[in-house]
């Protein structure tokens, strides 16, 4: 102790060195970034191969009935498979990234200490006309994943909108604004739809048709000529989301108005006449279920007020009377503290 007291400069050097080491340790490059920097420093040579050897692949049937390749793949065979799978849309940023991910996974298994160079070799040889572009995408992806890992804790603690803003900033910085928009195109579109649904929920006083019109405008804006296909594909998810967003509006309507509103929403979501008729039947069935459930709860309450009314036998008899085959399921839910019909029915949803 006295030694350090007599030499304060040495103590300062030691503390400074420790802090320096800690900063270095926290900011050191990940293995992936180290590999990438090595590749950036040296010349990126193209691996030589015989184009005539490409496509000589043997297949066998898997247990699942799909074809799989016999034996290990040569470099040329990998090129053939990559070209076959990805060439159709390889000019699109999203497809380039998806291909890079697939090749990265392959290279991490085959050359774990050198997978960045391995990835670059394969994609560069498969699509030589895009060599530089694919290398830039690989470089940005490696750095983005590294940043994501380092900032995961911080991102997880952020609210949705703040997190999205930070992610978009970093994506733009690493991939370039337009390229990032191309890669995360679907996420950006879905986020816009989500925001419109949030607005629909918040908008008090606006009628249903105005709200539905706003949603259609957003869908057309973000999906363009693919809007119809998107709505068809996510018809139920969108219908449920709209029902949730306008739930307060629906509850304020008379039963006849409600029925009309439900038909309007479903029709706007692309349901045909046959589907609307099936829905009319289900809406009636659900109303009956809830009416039965409410009658049961009322009688259950009356029963509980009588001496011995809360006995299991009496409750079982009551549940049997109202629910028949479902009585046992209702009993197990109640044992857990869940009463299926206790709350208010969510219109169009249950």
């Amino acid at each position, binding site marked *: 102790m006295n030694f350090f007291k007599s030499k304060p400069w040495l103590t300062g050097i030691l503390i400074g060195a420790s802090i320096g080491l800690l900063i270095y340790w926290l900011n050191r490059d990940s293995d992936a970034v180290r590999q990438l920097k090595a590749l950036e420093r040296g010349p990126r040579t193209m691996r030589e191969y015989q184009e005539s050897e490409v*496509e000589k692949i043997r297949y066998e049937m*898997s247990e*699942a009935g799909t074809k*799989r390749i016999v034996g290990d793949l040569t470099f040329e065979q990998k090129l053939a498979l990559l070209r076959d799978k990805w060439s159709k849309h390889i000019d699109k940023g*999203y497809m380039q990234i*998806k291909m890079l991910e697939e090749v990265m996974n392959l290279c991490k298994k085959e050359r774990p200490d050198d997978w960045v160079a391995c990835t670059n070799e394969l994609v560069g040889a498969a699509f030589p006309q895009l060599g530089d572009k694919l290398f830039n995408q690989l470089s940005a992806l490696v750095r983005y994943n590294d940043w994501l890992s380092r900032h995961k804790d911080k991102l997880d603690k952020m609210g949705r909108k703040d997190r999205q803003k930070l992610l978009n900033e970093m994506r733009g910085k690493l991939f370039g604004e337009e390229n990032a928009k191309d890669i995360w195109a679907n*996420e950006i579109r879905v986020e816009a739809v989500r925001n419109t649904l949030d607005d629909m929920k918040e908008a008090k006083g606006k009628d249903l048709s105005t709200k539905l019109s706003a949603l259609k405008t957003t869908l057309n804006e973000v999906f363009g000529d693919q809007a119809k296909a998107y709505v068809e594909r996510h018809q139920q998810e969108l219908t449920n989301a709209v029902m949730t967003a306008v739930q307060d509006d629906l509850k304020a309507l008379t039963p006849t108005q409600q029925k009309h509103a439900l038909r309007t929403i479903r029709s706007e979501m692309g349901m045909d006449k046959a589907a609307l008729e099936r829905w009319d039947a289900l809406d009636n069935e659900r109303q009956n279920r809830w009416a039965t459930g409410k009658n049961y709860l009322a009688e259950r309450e009356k029963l509980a007020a009588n001496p011995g009314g809360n006995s299991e036998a009496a409750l079982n008899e009551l549940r049997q009377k109202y629910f028949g085959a479902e009585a046992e399921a209702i009993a197990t839910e109640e044992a857990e503290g*869940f009463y299926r019909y206790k709350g208010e029915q969510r219109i169009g949803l249950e």
Partner: protein
Amino acid sequence: MRKLSTISLLVLALTAPAMVSAAAAKTTYPVVFAHGMAGFDDLLGYDYWGDDYGVFVGDPCDALLEVTCNGNINSGQKAFQTQTYPFQSSEVRGLDVANQVEAYMTSQGVSYINLVGHSQGGLDIRKAAKVLYQRKGRQVVKVLISISSPHRGSPVAKYILDLKPGVTNVVAALATIFGNSIYRSGNDAFAGAKQLVYNDYSATDGLTTGAKAFNVNNPVSATYAAYYGSFVTAQTGVSVNPALFILRNGFFNIDGDGYCIDDCDNDGAAGKGDGTATDLDDDGLVGINSQQMGYRLKHNSCTLCLDYITQDSTTGNVTNLNAPTSTQMTSASSVINQDHLDVVGVPPDTFDEMEFYAAIFNFIAAKD
């Protein structure tokens, strides 16, 4: 001659690689995906059933020049994602899933459905299958598949409820793992956590909770679904997602590959450990001895071609969820080396969600 033709059928010398990257077969009936605790679009801010770029694994490429879709599945494939209460018991969530499946079937005009659930979603779909059976008076579900599901409980759920080291608040701990959606109305963090403890968590609250009772009420049964299968996941500590902080920060590591009847070591899950917690015996939230339901399924990765799923022939069929055999609880056979969150769209990871779920579509197509 017959032998020769069998061989020629099995081994094909082809020069057109397009054959191998063909899309998965279309399922006869649509596939519904049910998310786990928290979930859907707010699982730590990422799309649950999507890749790391927000593309749903069940979106087929059915429009001209479309690229943000799953090119590995059939262009006519039908799929739907449920969105239920993020934090609730599976009695509540399962009923809600059943309502949504009923709605989807009505919109589509289909008579049968296939269900895939991740984590707690695997329990929810068992409840949903039963509710649908009771409403229709017949079996409605063809194939029911769970992924990383705590069918026999999770020690992490009990660890959190017990407020063990690193946990000062149940809600905050669940929010750290799964995201802030827990703070929205309609959630019951305690009901959600108690669902994932094997035994009834409290003898004094007047309620019957836990996976054991749930399994009795919502069993594996041919009455409710024609086929039951499950994927088992596990990963060692260093690789797990930072969100799985209890393991990541060294507070607690599940020892989840030992056998005993019920929860003999009172850790919150059926079975016990084998004395080594650091091996490949859990995925950060669930031990491997909790995950098998029905047949164990194997994910076969295929280099630059479509992955495929097979039924594991070594572990048999778990028909009584509360009484699996020693092999079914301890075998590492077909365990997918990924953590609890890798198999859904939480980045960054090296898991190819598009291929994995395409392989599941293909497997279901052969069964439904």
